[in-house]
C-alpha cells in the first residue's frame, strides 16, 4: 500500500519541554491507526503538528510526498488532512447545515462578484454544495436537524456533526481526537461501527486518539503508544497489549 503520511523524527519543543520527542510514524493508505498514551503524553500536540497548528521544532512531516512543515492549518486541510477536536469546536451559533457547508468552502468555484451579483456559477455551485452537505448529514442521521442551531444539539450528535464536517473537506486522512470521550458503552459501540464504515465508504486513512482501550484495540490495525512525548511502542493491538513498557506506562511496575 502507498505511503500517505510520514513523520520523520519530529519533535515539538516548548521552552524546556519536549512535548513530543523524535516521533517517527507512518500511515499508509487505507490504514486505521491508533495513537494512545497516558494523559499529557503529547498525543494532541502530535495532532497539532500534523495539522499545521504547530510547526515541528525538529524533524519533517510529509503527506503524499509534500512537506507539511511550515504550512498553515488551512493549507494542510486543503492538502487532505481533516481533524476533529477533543473539546468539540463547532460553529455553535450557526445551523447544522451551515456548519457542513462551510467545510465545502475551499471547493467553491464562484468568485465574489458572482456572489454579490447572483449570476454565473453562483446558483449552480450553491445548489451543489447544499446537495452534498445534505447527503453528508443524511449519512450521519442529522438531516432532520439541518436548521437546528449547532449548540442546541445533544452531545453525541455534536460529535457526529463534527465528523461530518471534517469529512466535507474531502480528506484522505482523518484525525479523530478522542471521539468517544463522554460517550456511554452503547454509543461507543456505535461509534466503533461508524469509524469502520467511514473508512471504507470514504476510502480514507484514519488516525485515532482514544482512551477507550476497548475501542482502540477493536478497530485499529496498528497502534502507536506515546509516553512523555516519546513513542515507546508501536505494533498490532495484540503486540501492544503484551508489551511490557506499555503496561508499565499505564499500570506502573509490578511489585516483586
Amino acid at each position, binding site marked *: 500500500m502507498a505511503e500517505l503520511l510520514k513523520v520523520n523524527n519530529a519533535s515539538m519543543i516548548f521552552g524546556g519541554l519536549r512535548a513530543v520527542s523524535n516521533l517517527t510514524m507512518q500511515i499508509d493508505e487505507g490504514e486505521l491507526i491508533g495513537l494512545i498514551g497516558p494523559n499529557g503524553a503529547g498525543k494532541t500536540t502530535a495532532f497539532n503538528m500534523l495539522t499545521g497548528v504547530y510547526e515541528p521544532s525538529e524533524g519533517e512531516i510529509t503527506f503524499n510526498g509534500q512537506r507539511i512543515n511550515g504550512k*498553515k492549518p488551512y493549507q494542510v486541510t486543503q492538502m487532505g488532512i481533516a481533524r476533529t477536536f477533543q473539546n468539540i469546536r463547532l460553529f455553535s*451559533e450557526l445551523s447544522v447545515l451551515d456548519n457542513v457547508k462551510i467545510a465545502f468552502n475551499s471547493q467553491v468555484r464562484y468568485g465574489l462578484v458572482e456572489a*454579490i451579483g447572483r449570476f454565473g456559477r453562483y446558483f449552480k455551485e450553491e445548489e451543489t454544495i447544499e446537495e452534498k452537505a445534505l447527503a453528508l448529514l443524511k449519512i450521519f442521521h442529522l438531516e432532520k436537524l439541518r436548521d437546528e442551531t449547532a449548540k442546541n444539539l445533544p452531545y453525541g450528535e455534536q460529535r457526529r456533526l463534527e465528523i461530518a464536517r471534517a469529512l466535507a473537506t474531502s480528506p484522505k486522512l482523518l484525525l479523530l481526537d478522542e471521539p468517544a470521550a463522554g460517550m456511554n458503552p452503547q454509543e461507543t459501540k456505535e461509534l466503533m461501527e461508524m469509524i469502520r464504515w467511514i473508512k471504507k465508504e470514504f476510502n480514507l486513512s484514519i488516525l485515532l486518539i482514544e482512551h477507550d482501550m476497548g475501542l482502540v484495540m477493536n478497530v485499529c490495525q496498528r497502534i502507536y503508544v506515546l509516553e512523555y512525548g516519546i513513542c515507546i511502542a508501536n505494533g498490532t493491538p495484540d503486540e501492544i497489549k503484551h508489551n511490557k513498557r506499555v503496561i508499565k506506562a499505564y499500570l506502573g511496575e509490578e511489585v516483586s
Partner: protein
Amino acid sequence: MKSLRQSLHKQDLLGLGLMVILFAVFYFLFDEEILDDYWETNVILILINIIMAVSLNLINGLTGQFSIGHAGFMAVGAYTSAIITVKLGMDFPIALIVATVSAAFLGFLIGMPTLRLNGDYLAIATLGLGEIIRIAILNIDYVGGASGFMGIPRLTTFPIAFWIMVFVVYFIKNFKNSADGRACLAIRENEIAAETMGINTTKYKVMAFTIGAGFAGTAGALFSHYYYIAHPASFTFMRSFDVLTMVVLGGLGSISGSISGAVLLTAISAALADYPEWRMVIYSIVLIVLMLNRPQGIFGNKELSLKMFQSIKLGGGSRGGTAQSE
C-alpha cells in the same frame, strides 16, 4: 433544486418592490414639500448611518472582528471625494467611486497588520487608527486643516443616497449568503475550527475589513457632499461609537438589525436635537434597558424575513420575541 434560485429571486424582487414604494413615498413627500428640509436632512442622515452601520456590521457582526475606527474610513471618503469634486473639478459619481476605493485600500493596508490582533487589542488598535487618520487630516493644510474642507457643493440628493444605501445593503446581504460570507461567519464562531475547515482566516478577515472600510468611505462622500463641509471634528471616535451602538442595538450579525438600529438611534438623536444635554442620557437609558433585557440586540443574529412575519401571525408574541424563533 430550482427552488433556491426561484425563492431568492422572489425575495429580491419583493425587497426591491418595497424599496421602490418607500422611495416613491418619500420622494413624493419631499417633492411636494409636505416634509420640509429638516425632515430631508434627517432622512439623508439616516441613510448615511445605515450605510455606516451595515458596513461596520460586516466587520464586527459577521466576521466578529471588533473594530471601532469606522469614523476614520468615513473621513477618508469624505475628504478624498471632496478633493475630487472641488480641487479636481470632476463629477460626483467619480468622487464616490474614488472615495470608496481609497477607503477600501486604506482598510486593506491597515487590516493586514492589525487583524492579527484579537478582541480588545484589535479594538484599541482600530480606535487608535481612527484617531490617527483624523489627526493626520487635521494637519494637512491642502484640505483645510483644522478649519475643515469648505465649499463642497451639495451633490448628495435623496435619490442618490437612497439607492446607494439599497446597493450597499444588497451587496452585504448577498455577501453574507455566499461562501465568502459563510467563511466570515465561521471565523466569528470559532477561528481555530474555521482554519481547520480549510478557510484562510487572514484572507477573509482582511476582505471583510476592506469591504467595510470601503463602504464607510462611500458614506463619508455622501456626508461631506450633503453638509457642504468636511471637518475633522465630524469624524471623532464618538462617531465610531455611535455607529457601533447602532450595530449592537440592532444585533451583531443581523443586517436588518443594523438598519433598524441606525433608523432608531438617528431618529432619537434628531428628536432630541433641541435638548442636546438629554441626548446622551436617553442614549444610555436605551442601551442599559437593552443590555438588561435583550443583550443580543433587537434582532439577535436573525434577519427580518417573511418567515418571521408568519411566525408572528401564528401568535409568536412580540416582535423581539419572535426574532429569536428557536
